[in-house]
């Protein structure tokens, strides 16, 4: 048996983007944004860690530093959308008002997955065929509720925006995308692969069989499969699916080609992935998973953003000191009682901060060389551009 030939070497960046020589280990957000070769930033992370906020804050900061930015958000919380002036999900990038003067600009859009899907069908198929597809019950269900559609369409939209930015009118020079809150973290990376394997699969060929003549497919198992499908799905569903697949057949190639194109784009040098987490065990575990997955897929990782981190506050007082002094002061004067309360807050904060530090150092030990930046916990949510600017300052460590 001859050994398998080694895979061809892939281009790998010499140093991760955003890692400045002086402070290796810290994610230098401003360097990342200033680097004109950065054309796409993908923010990924588990749900509830502030992914969309980070994407929006990066977008605003980049715009105010002179970049022409488009932020693509998938499912923003209402207030965050409002903070960028997004009031409706209309699938079109809109300028964000109130961005500081200068050569930069900020556009933002929310993804409408069904509309994106419909538009692709309309562009790719003849009007009659498009109408036939758009009204097919299986297509309607697929385009509006299928759990993976969001990922496919986010990829599709990213490809479209990048095409407009780079090849057409140079409307943007940086696209920041916030990834869908998928159940499994990097579903969107799997989208092209899944699409390809599905389209090449025997199942599609099986569904196409009645249209193309079954002769070639009369292999062992074919009869069993169709009768099983009929039993489980019912004849009507099977017919709908067959009609859909037959109508869609000519579009498959284009879909796959574009999905593969976007996948290659994600691996390219102009892309930077920013993994977002919060200092909680589950979110940090997901972050580890992301970092490993990205490395496995040769995707360029810029670094890790850890949101909502608690620092230690007042220096020089340990948790034990605070607790023992607090006990003594509790029974003193009114000011002593107040000081005891303050020490109790301090002790609780140190506990949280110590737990967070343990999580961070565990991550750093397991993933050496991943530039990281911690963003301090704010008291409230972001409601406006000033709030996003504040986050931007924290991300870049400029107070």
């Amino acid at each position: 048996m001859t050994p398998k030939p080694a895979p061809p070497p892939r281009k790998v960046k010499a140093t991760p983007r955003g890692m400045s020589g002086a402070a290796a280990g810290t994610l230098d957000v401003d360097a990342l944004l200033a680097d004109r070769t950065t054309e796409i930033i993908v923010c990924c992370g588990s749900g509830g860690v502030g992914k969309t906020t980070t994407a929006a804050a990066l977008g605003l900061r980049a715009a105010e530093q002179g970049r022409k930015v488009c932020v693509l958000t998938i499912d923003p919380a209402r207030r965050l959308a409002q903070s960028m002036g997004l009031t409706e999900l209309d699938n079109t990038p809109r300028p964000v008002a109130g961005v500081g003067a200068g050569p930069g600009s900020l556009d933002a859009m929310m993804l409408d997955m069904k509309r994106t899907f419909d538009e692709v069908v309309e562009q790719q198929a003849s009007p009659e065929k498009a109408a036939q597809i758009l009204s097919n019950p299986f297509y309607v269900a697929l385009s509006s509720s299928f759990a993976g559609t969001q990922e496919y369409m986010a990829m599709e939209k990213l490809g479209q925006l990048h095409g407009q930015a780079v090849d057409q009118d140079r409307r943007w020079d940086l696209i920041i995308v916030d990834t869908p809150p998928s159940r499994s973290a990097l579903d969107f990376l799997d989208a092209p692969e899944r699409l390809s394997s599905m389209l090449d699969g025997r199942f599609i060929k099986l569904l196409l069989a009645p249209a193309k003549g079954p002769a070639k497919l009369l292999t062992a198992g074919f009869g069993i499969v169709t009768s099983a499908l009929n039993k489980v799905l019912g004849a009507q569903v099977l017919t709908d699916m067959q009609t859909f697949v037959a109508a869609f057949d000519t579009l498959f190639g284009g879909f796959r080609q574009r999905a593969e194109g976007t996948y290659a784009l994600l691996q390219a040098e102009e892309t930077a992935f920013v993994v977002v987490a919060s200092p909680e065990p589950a979110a940090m575990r997901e972050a580890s998973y992301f970092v490993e997955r990205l490395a496995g897929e040769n995707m360029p990782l810029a670094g890790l953003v850890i949101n909502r981190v608690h620092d230690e506050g007042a220096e020089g007082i340990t948790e034990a000191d605070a607790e023992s002094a607090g006990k003594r002061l509790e029974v003193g004067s009114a000011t002593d009682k107040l000081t005891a309360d303050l020490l109790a807050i301090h002790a609780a904060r140190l506990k949280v901060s110590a737990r967070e530090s343990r999580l961070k150092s565990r991550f750093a030990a397991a993933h050496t060389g991943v530039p990281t930046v911690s963003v301090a916990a704010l008291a409230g949510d972001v409601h406006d551009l000033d709030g996003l600017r504040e986050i931007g300052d924290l991300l870049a460590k400029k107070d």
Partner: protein
Amino acid sequence: MALSTQLHVVTGKGGTGKTTVAAALAMALAGEGKKVLLCEVEGRQGIAQLFDVPPLPYEERKIAVGLGGGAVYALAIDPESALLEYLAMYYRLGRAGKALDRFGIIDFATTIAPGVRDVLLTGKVYEAARRREGRDFTYDAIVMDAPPTGRITRFLNVNTEVAGLAKVGPIRRQADSIMEMMRSPDTRVHLVTVLEEMPVQETIDGIAELTSQKLPIGHVILNLVRPPLVSADTRTALLSRTVTVEAVGASLESAGLDPKAAYDLMSGGVADIKRQDLQESQREILVDCGRPLVELPALTEGIDLGALFELADKLKNDGVV
């Protein structure tokens, strides 16, 4: 012993601790002597990590025991296994099941076919809830660590999901049976939130959506609630600035601490009061949501088995189980 199987569906925005709450709820039920199935449906293995056991297979395993003969079994439901099991159980598709797999149909059904994935996941819960040993139901209760609030209504409302796909036929019948269970008096959907603006808004939206689909809502569980650490006097003094940095410094010095820490400690105190106020304003919004509220404290040490017992006690005392 079980005359019926209760179903507790636990949802919540990402990061609010719904897996922890689901586990604590299962522990609380087991503490009452009940046989409980705790299941997850998102392939994250959150339960295994919480109980510090190896990743869960597609198989019900005992992971904890409660007092009075109660026990928690855990199950990670994945759609592929659920589909193969379903086909084997209802259609006796031994060989055909394998053929379906070979044709890529299992993969298609569980990843591409609209809505089928959710029907399979909830279908497995349905099967466990209706399973009997002799005359009695196998489980007294099932606790489901469900998808997040933003997706929960669609996830539970399997009927609508498959409506566009199948108007008649076996999938539709299966969806109808699941729907009946979801709306039965034995089912409760609990929403977990933290007292911050976005999760609270999502909870309010979630309640409206669940209500519009006639899905039964149980408790709203306020998780990670931070206890107030300052007295009313301290609060007034800090906010009205009637206490000086020097006075606090002197007080620190009298207790043998560095007086220079006074300023930072006081800003820490003011920030804490602000967060408390924000928490309070969010609590007030939820008081009007029409559902009973239960609070679980933030445990500064993090979550371990001991902490789960503590949270389970709180859930029991507050009448969630």
